Every structure is written in C-alpha cells, then in structure tokens.
C-alpha cells in the first residue's frame, strides 16, 4: 500500500499526487514511469513520473481524469492509499549534448514535459517552452513553465488564452524566425507528437517523444505496448518510453491506443452508475 502524501487539483481534470514510495524515489530518473493499480478489481495503468524526491521518499504523478481508473484514483484523498505502485520502469531521458531545446507539452503531457524542461534548464540549456490546451480552463503549471525557460508560450484550440491554434504553429514560427534548436522534446497526445515530428523532420531537428501505450506489466512481459520504430518492433515499456519521433509509426500507435475504446467507455459508464448507486455490480 502506497500512501498519498499530497493531492492537488490543477483544474477540474488534472490532478497531482505525491505518493510515498521510498525505493522508487531513490532509483527514479527523469523520463521513467510507474504502474499503478487502485484497488483489487483495478487494472494496471502506466503513468510517467512527474517528479521524485529521494530524501522525502516520494514520487509525484500527474494524471487526467479520462476513464474509470483515473476517476477512481481521483476519488482518493490525501492520506489514502494506492494498492499497487511499481517502478521506476523504462529507460531514463538522455539530455547529453542538448544546448538549445524546444520543449512542448500538449494537455496532460505538460506534466511530463515540465520536469524535462526543468532538468535541461538546470543543466544550463536554453529552453523555449510551448504548451497547448483545448481551452483556458485546462491550463496548469503556467508559472512553473516560465521559471524554467527562456521563453514560454501557451496555445489554445479555441483562442481563449494565449495563441489561438496548435503548438506546431508556434514552433514553426519560432523556427522560421531563426530559433536554432538542436533538440525538440514533444510530450502529449499521439496526434500532437506526430504533428510536431512531421514539422521538425522538414527542418532536420532531432525530436524526442514519450509514448504511453496500453500495457499490463511494464517490464517487457506482455508486449501489448509494442510500437514500430524505424521499421522495428520495440516494447515501449523497456525500450522506451522515449523514442526518436522521426522513426515512430504514429498511425499504428494511434490505432493500437484505441483498441479498447468501447470497453473503456463501458467500464467507465458502469463505474459511474455504481458510484451513483444506480447499478449493483
């Protein structure tokens, strides 16, 4: 059992939890992830580590309420326990040689892009930070973004805050205006990472993306997370989660991520009915 030390809601959908997991906190490195299970009937889901504190023995996760598991997780309070919490899994980020980076976070992806930007900033790299949201109500970490970057930009799909449009619009204009990035790090929905990778391919800028596919164990056992990278099948859990965005077959990854869409909707609906006492299961 893993105690929730702190809970903070950035907005109606995005929640931060600091979880007591001393051994994981001690070994964690940027870019790695954990797997958790909320209760006995629960499924195992991967979440990228947003932050960790070896001294305090805590690991921070940030998640968005999208389905049954994240809803159940969001219903836990400070002082409650998460049943299972495993990690740190996957390989860690490689920041070697990065001097001038654009870091891009799309929606919840910002939660993971932020520690990347922070790590680069602390290593003395120059960081331009771009975050995209559907609308202004979903914005979070705005001040933190500023504190770890030379320039920071917000985009919203509907124009309710920042630049109206997509993160790629801002990235493109920055590149066109002469920004010389040696690396672009893009973390967010698959369609966003695909769009960023397609754009940076034109300019020949190395691009790293972080994948978060469906998986069971997170240790290379199930192969559910397989993804085609440069024509080869990789397991995102052990070979990733970070990959060269120019080599990832995003269309396949998008199709695979939707494999259980119907089941997930069914499960979430059932859960909602149960919570509201309309169904006894």
């Amino acid at each position: 059992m893993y105690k929730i030390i702190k809970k903070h809601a950035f907005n109606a959908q995005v929640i931060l939890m600091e979880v007591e997991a001393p051994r994981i906190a001690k070994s964690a490195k940027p870019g790695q992830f954990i797997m958790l299970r909320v209760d006995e009937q629960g499924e195992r889901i991967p979440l990228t580590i947003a932050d960790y504190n070896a001294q305090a023995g805590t690991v921070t996760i940030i998640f968005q309420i999208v389905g049954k598991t994240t809803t159940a997780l969001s219903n836990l309070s400070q002082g409650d326990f998460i049943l299972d919490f495993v990690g740190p899994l996957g390989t860690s980020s490689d920041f070697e040689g990065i001097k001038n980076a654009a870091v891009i976070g799309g929606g919840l992806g910002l939660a993971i892009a932020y520690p990347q930007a922070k790590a680069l900033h602390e290593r003395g790299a120059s960081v331009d930070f771009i975050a995209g949201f559907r609308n202004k109500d979903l914005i979070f970490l705005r001040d933190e973004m500023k504190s770890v970057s030379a320039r920071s930009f917000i985009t919203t799909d509907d124009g309710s805050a920042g630049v109206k449009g997509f993160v790629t619009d801002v990235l493109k204009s920055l590149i066109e205006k002469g920004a010389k990035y040696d690396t672009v790090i893009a973390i967010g929905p698959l369609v966003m990472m695909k769009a960023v990778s397609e754009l940076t391919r034109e300019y020949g800028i190395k691009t790293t993306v972080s994948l978060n596919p469906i998986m069971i164990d997170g240790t290379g056992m199930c192969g559910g997370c397989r993804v085609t990278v440069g024509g080869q099948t990789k397991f995102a859990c052990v070979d990733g989660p970070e990959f060269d965005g120019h080599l990832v077959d995003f269309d396949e990854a998008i199709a695979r991520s939707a494999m259980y869409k119907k089941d997930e909707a069914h499960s979430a609906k059932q859960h909602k009915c149960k919570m509201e006492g309309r169904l006894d299961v």
Partner: protein
Amino acid sequence: MFNLDPKKTEMPVQAPGERNKNFKEVATGYTEEMAMSEARRCLACKHRPCVAGCPVSVNIPDFIKEVEKGNFERAYEIITDTNSLPAVCGRVCPQESQCEKVCVRAIKGESVGIGRLERFVADWYMKNIEEKIEKPALNGIKMAVIGSGPAGLACAGDLAKLGYDVTIFEAFHVAGGVLMYGIPQFRLPKEIVRKEIDRLKKLGVKIETNSVVGKMISIDALISEEGFKAVFIGTGAGLPSFMKIPGENLCGVYSANEFLTRINLMNAYKFPKYDTPIKVGKRVAVVGGGNVAMDAARCAKRLGADEVYIIYRRGEEEMPARLEEIHHAKEEGIIFKILTNPTRIMGKDNWVSGIECVKMELGKPDESGRRRPSAVEGSEFVIDADEVIMAIGQSPNPLIKSTTPDLKTHNWGGIITDDAGRTSKPGVFAGGDAVTGAATVILAMGAGKAAAAAMDEYAALKTDNK
C-alpha cells in the same frame, strides 16, 4: 490385490461441451477408491525407473504403496520430502515424458497414473489435514530471492527451512509467477497456488510484491546496502517471442503472455466487474504447439469464440504440449491445423482480418531431434480470423541482465550457471527458466532447490572466513 487393468483408472472430468464454457477445473480428481485402485497397478519394481525419471527424484513407489494402504498422510510426507509443490506438479508436470514414460507398466498398456496419484494425495492432504508449520529458528542471515514462480518458491522454501531470513521480491502485485499469470484456472486453480504461498509465509518467508529488481534496486545494492548474503535469480522466461511477420502489430494480435495475463492475473474474463478488458474474436488463430498455445486456445473458446485454431508448423507428434492438454483441447472443439506456418497477418481498418499460412512438410531431424519442417512452395492459403495469439515461446527477461553488468549470459539471454546454480557473480545464484529458457515447473523447482543448497554452502563459507 494387484490391479491388472492395462489402462489407467480414468480421471473424472467435466464434460467437454460444458467445461469449454467455464473456467472451473477440467479434471475433478480421483476419489479415495479410485486412487487406491490405481495404486494397485504399481508393480513396485526394484530398479525404480520412475524415480530416476523424476527431476526431483520423488520416492514414487513408496508413496504409491502408502496410497494403496489408504495411508494418504504418510504418502504426502514421502512426496514432500523432495517435492514442495505436489498439488501443482500433479497437475502440470509432463509426466508422460518423465516418470510415467519409464514406468514398466507402460511397456504393455498404460503407465501407472503417477501424476494423478500425486495430485490426489496433495488434494487429500490440503482438504483433510490441518498442517502445523513450525517456523524454524532464524540464523540471522538474510537471503534474497528474485521472482516468486516455481524456482523462487522452491528456493525460498528450502532456505527458510534451513533457518535463513528469506525475502522474495516479486515484480507483479501477487506472488506465484507463471503459476498465477500463465497457467489458467481450469488447469491449475489459483487457490492451490495461494495455499502453497501461504505455507511459505508460515515458514517465515517475506514477500515483497511490486518490486522490480534491476529497476527499483540493483542486485549489488541488495547485497551491499540491504545486507543480503546471497541472491537467487528466478525471474523466469517472460519475454514473449513474435514471428517478425507482417501484420503482427495490428489490433487483435496478442502475445500469449498478454492474453493469458489479462485473463489469469487481471481477471479480464470477469470484465467489467474487473477493470481489465480483453478482446476475444469470433475466429481466433493461436500460433504454436506448446502448453501455452493450448491454454490460450482453450481460454479463447471459454470466452465465447466460435472457432479456435491451433496453427503449428510441425506435426502433432512433435508438439511440445502435454498429451493431456492436446487431448482436452481437441475434446473442447479446438481445430488443429498442423504442418501449417503463418506467413503474414492480414488486416482491415487496423484490425486482424485473416492469417495467411503455408503448408509445411517434415524432413530430417534437426538439432532438437524433431523432424525439420519446410514450406511447401505455392501452398499459401488464408484462414479467416479476427484475432491472432502468438504462442511461439518466451525467452528470459533481459531486465536483470541489463542492470547487472558482471552477470554472464548466453546470447539468447539465459543466465550462465553451473549445476548448482552459481552464476559468474559471487553470491548470486540463478535457476529455472531464467537459466534454461522456457521449460517446466518441476525443472525450475529442482533448480531452485539445488541453488538453495549452494547458497547455504556459500553462506557457511562466507561466515567462516569472516
């Protein structure tokens, strides 16, 4: 009175048309009368070929003699002198290629049903005897076991009996390894595995689940920082193989590992009561001829598939699965496509729509002793399928290897050890599928026990030298 019947006493089973719709155990087990009658088929040969045929040398004629007398408790004690998981082994051991293969009764007729008797004894004991387990006095020396499958459980049990303070580190949220995530409920009820694990806990073994050694903590840190005198690696063969044919990453293609883990470990067959979903098609093609392939096929049938195919490139005689599983699978309506090899998986809208195969023919024996299959040119044909499950084998998981640089391994991933399980790294031992590649429960247990003895010896030496 000696039982002259050339055939084994038949095992009671659930009817095929009934059991292929539920996950309850297929074979329901001998009654006392059946067991005693079957025991009377044993010739009690002086040269005891069956004992030599058992990887852990269970004293087979002696325990059978006790069964014959109705002395089941004593029979259990004889088995557990050398085999700590009889309820498991009685169910999943490939007896026909071990003890029963060399049984003298098998020369004319069927062998004695040794596996069935072992299972009967273990079940009888669990049901009738309140086992008193005394915790041995602790010697104050800590031992670490990585992985809680058959190898790890056997190793931990033996070490605990010797008085060591044993901790098992398990990556999953429950202990049991392949016995929990791999072998389905209808072949090995999970309650049995849980009971065996509870016995270990009563012996004082501690189990830390959710602990991925190599990631959460290194083997070096277990020894230097956490004070473990020696470490046993029993991490199994969990890395699923794929065929590397086009279409393998389509939606609807599973590794057998994933398919079975969703069902067995995550209870996906009870979705949506349990949150983990599983896709089961109407026409499911399972590729492979081992126990894992049979398990996957039979699970798919139970979950409502109309037609389930086993696609295997060699002949039925070459199939590595236990005879009983092949037999049960056929009874349950699984369609066998032998001498058939997939060449690509076809898709429509990102989902599996069929599997293209070629016919195979068998040539001369290869290095495994089985006749080598080769493709018949121009024999391509398509099996309509909306799901494909790859059950063509597993290899050792590279997690430990990649985080323990001085641990020597074979190119294919297996950890290199001597017969006693000593690795190239002092104080580090290994056994089971992590060393041999995918093999059997009983071999893994044997390796775990051998390593426990070597670890005991190592600890004694280390303590003397201090």
